[in-house]
């Protein structure tokens, strides 16, 4: 290890350490001692990470309340940034909250972080096309059975036991903080980008099963069978048609792939 390398490692450790100590390479002078000089970097490091993370996790901030700053400090200590973009430091937040005490005993915290992070990553995900209603209308009747409806690649699925989406909505609209509610069975929530706008919403079981099947690449005939398993007799095709139109209007179908003939 070169002397430059070892100096940088010691200085980095001194910046990140909980307790202040100055590496031997640093000296002071009549203007300020070494510890005072180092303190500017130590303070700046924590303040920068805290500020950047706070901006990425509005639902988590709302849920955690006054505990949020200490949560951020604990995360920054446990998971130093390894990405060139400070914004991406939050990538491990949900995983951290799932295993670190005391937050792992409050699973809504990890769910809030997961939702915030999904919204953040959708924001600047790769641009993808979305089909419009005209594209659907142009499909020949005998092509429907084998047709595959491909959702966008950036579509994310979350299984939520708590109403953290209400916390996010309230934070985004500066509304009052909702009450935390938990349910035994998770709700499926999707996060996607329609054009340049990030959207999220919960899915009813039938829609969730159908959209998941489409994402797996199942043909339209299979979607009809799944719909028949959820809808009252005789209503499956009509329900599916309504859902399909809703997906297209929401930018949830990126491409139509014809079946093999």
């Amino acid at each position: 290890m070169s002397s430059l390398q070892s100096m940088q490692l010691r200085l980095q450790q001194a910046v990140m350490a909980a307790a202040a100590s100055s590496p031997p390479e640093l000296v002071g002078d009549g203007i300020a001692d070494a510890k005072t000089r180092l303190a500017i970097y130590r303070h700046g490091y924590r303040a920068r990470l805290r500020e950047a993370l706070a901006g990425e996790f509005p639902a988590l901030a709302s849920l955690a309340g006054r505990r949020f700053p200490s949560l951020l400090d604990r995360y920054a200590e446990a998971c130093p940034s390894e990405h060139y973009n400070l914004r991406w430091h939050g990538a491990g937040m949900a995983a951290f909250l799932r295993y670190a005490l005391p937050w792992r005993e409050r699973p809504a915290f990890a769910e809030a972080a997961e939702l915030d992070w999904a919204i953040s990553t959708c924001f600047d995900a790769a641009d993808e096309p979305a089909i419009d209603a005209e594209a659907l209308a142009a499909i020949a009747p005998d092509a429907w059975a084998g047709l595959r409806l491909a959702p966008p690649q950036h579509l994310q699925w979350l299984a939520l036991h708590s109403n953290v989406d209400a916390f996010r909505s309230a934070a985004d609209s500066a509304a009052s903080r909702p009450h935390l509610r938990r349910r035994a069975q998770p709700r499926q929530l999707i996060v996607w980008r329609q054009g340049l706008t990030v959207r999220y919403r919960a899915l009813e079981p039938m829609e969730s099963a159908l959209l998941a099947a489409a994402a797996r690449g199942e043909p339209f005939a299979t979607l009809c069978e799944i719909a028949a398993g959820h809808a009252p007799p005789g209503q499956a095709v009509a329900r599916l048609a309504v859902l399909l139109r809703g997906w297209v209007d929401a930018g949830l179908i990126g491409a139509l792939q014809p079946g093999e003939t």
Partner: protein
Amino acid sequence: MSHIDNDRPPYLGYGLGLRVEHYQELLDHPHGVDWLEIVSENYMVPGGLPLVWLERFRARFPLVMHGVSLSIGGTDPLDDGYLARLDALARRIEPAWVSDHLCWTGVQGVNLHDLMPLPYTEEALDHVVARVRQVQDRLRRRILLENVSSYLRFADAQLEEWEFLAAVAERADCLLLLDINNVYVSARNHGFDPLRYLDGVPVQRVQQFHLAGHEQGEALLVDTHDAPVPSPVWALYEAAVRRFGAVSTMIERDDHMPPLRELVAELDDARRLAEPLLRAAA
């Protein structure tokens, strides 16, 4: 070795750092702003709104790219993935130039997201020069390096900061982004004469100036970029214009963001200060 474009980039006049708070206002009222500097990393993303805005600005203004994570003085290997994304962005927007800081940002995979100063030693000089050449080969262009505000003093320093900066530029054949505020802040924090600093920087290497504000900490000045350019920095800017001539100048503001019109007015102050000096020297 790949071909490096050694042509001197153009003089752009008086610009601003592009910040989200001013996006729409800048497009609606671009008067008084000759060019824009973007933070490279904010646009090294796959898609979405940041790149849409960037294309709008690209259609209206000359752009330059200014990075914060190159870590040219770091001792980890240069990050190939980072350089590939930086290169892709440069190919996409064709900036007048690409700059970063003469610093290191972390080691062993960690990013401190700060501009950590280097010890001004022969070892560090050799190290930085080799890496600047590597980056310039990769990007096929000369880069600009900015002097950072430094608060640390290293026991084994062998060179003054300006000697180190000049040696890097000459030996690596790169250009310089001289941050006038950083020169002033470091001069106060280390007790040197800022005019001596300017005199030590080679005239032909300086491509861009930054102007910014700072705040007085307990013992040291802190480069906060959250206040208007103060009078001692304006005085140093005047000395810099006299020495370096027509150098593209930019106001850099990152916090306590004022309305755009205040930054444009500050930019006009720079223009009013520099233009008579440049005309007199012509």
